[in-house]
């Protein structure tokens, strides 16, 4: 288990020395996953509310489809987005292949089902009186949406955390769509894949620790927010 200690030492060194490659990867990771998680929540939470709150024909089918989408392998999402953004693909003219926004498209697709499924369940399992209370107090559709999401805010937060975890730790999409290009689209995870592929396990572990450190920091900030949001 020397690799672990080596990895820890290397991680500290990379961070302390301000290793440019590492910081570039950190920055790209944050940019790509930040954009994606924002899009995931903005799209996934309202959609999740819709399928958790309303009883429309085909709702069960949609729920099952969303749950199934949780099993979408990242390589396949990566492949599909690659084909979409590829120069000859339908969106090739946007020139998004091998760019951070391009990666974010794929990562957003990865995260949306998670946010949708968890929001839908939280809304569906919320106290039945919540809906009646909001309606009888005069809330309109949009107000019911926001008030319900606020009542289930801890579930929404976990949905965000889970989707973020999935996005920030995946490698297939970033690799396929981003191309793992140094200084441009190399994220921490694609760097890890590269280093472990080369057999440089200590560096791989070090980068993994860097990623966890970032995740820890973000979770600490969220815990602060959570505390503010009351019980």
């Amino acid at each position, binding site marked *: 288990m020397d690799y672990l200690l080596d990895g820890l030492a290397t991680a500290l060194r990379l961070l302390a020395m301000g290793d440019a490659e590492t910081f570039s990867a950190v920055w790209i990771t944050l940019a790509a996953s930040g954009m994606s998680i924002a899009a995931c929540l903005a799209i996934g939470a309202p959609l999740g509310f819709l399928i958790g709150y309303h009883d429309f024909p085909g709702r069960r089918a949609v729920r099952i489809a969303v749950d199934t989408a949780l099993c979408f392998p990242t390589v396949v999402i990566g492949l599909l987005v690659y084909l979409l953004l590829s*120069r000859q693909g339908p969106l090739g003219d946007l020139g998004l292949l*091998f760019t951070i926004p391009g990666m974010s498209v794929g990562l957003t697709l990865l995260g949306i089902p998670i946010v949708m499924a968890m929001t839908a369940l939280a809304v569906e399992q919320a106290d039945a009186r919540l809906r009646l209370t909001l309606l009888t107090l005069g809330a309109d559709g949009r107000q019911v949406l926001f008030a319900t999401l606020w009542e289930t805010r801890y579930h929404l937060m976990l949905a965000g955390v889970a989707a973020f975890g999935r996005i920030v730790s995946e490698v297939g999409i970033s690799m396929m769509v981003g191309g793992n*290009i140094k200084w441009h689209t190399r994220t921490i995870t694609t760097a890890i894949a*590269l280093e472990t*592929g*080369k057999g*440089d396990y200590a560096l791989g572990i070090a980068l993994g620790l860097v990623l966890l450190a970032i995740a820890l920091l973000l979770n600490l900030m969220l815990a602060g927010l959570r505390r503010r949001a009351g019980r």
Partner: protein
Amino acid sequence: ADKVLMMATTTSTADTGLLDDLAPAFQKETGIELKFTATGTGKALEMGRSCNVDVLLVHDPEAEAKFVGDGFGINRVQLMYNDFVMVGPKADPAGVKGKTVAEAMKTLSGGKAPFISRGDKSGTHALELRLWKDTGVGVPEGKEWYVEAGQGMMRTIAMCAEKGGYTLTDRGTWIKYEAGLKESGPLAIVVEKDQKLFNQYSSITVNPAKCPSAKADLADAFTKWMASPSTQKRIADFKLMEKPLFTPNAGK
């Protein structure tokens, strides 16, 4: 940089660090930024076919010939080579040490020890398959001792060590593997310096007639730069753990 050249290449050129050494020099001398994505040769060729890159640096002569023959690529230039070695347990249970690669593979087909195949259609895998055919044994697919890994070279060597088997590897990855273990690993080179183990790298420009967006001018500049004497010397001087990895052979 406003002039950006997009290249797809094989993992070996990137993993050894050669391109990390060359790219900054290339930018400094020509003002062109080289962006490269490292994948298997198969996928690199596909990226060329789908016009997502401008130039390729690959090592599978047969597939390359087909790529150019189909009109997807032009201006294939051979730039350098390195060689393959066969590695196996230090104790050499199958007894192949010092043999030619053909004899060694015939012996291995007796099944005394596992043989780990890349199994991933990479350049290395293509060579291995060719060797099985040349020796007359045929590809031992499905045999108990024939392990089809489907992984990168480094992981295949690691698996070879775990399973106490034999495998074919490019010398660069082997040097890195050995260096990583500080020379205390269970494996050693058993067969090397056989001319059948020759590994040619070439660059190919993506055909602008098929891909209007491809920057053939920059690609040609890259090829020319790679083939230039100063770069060729730079390649010859590139060392990993004090051992040279690539032999330049542009124009030969």
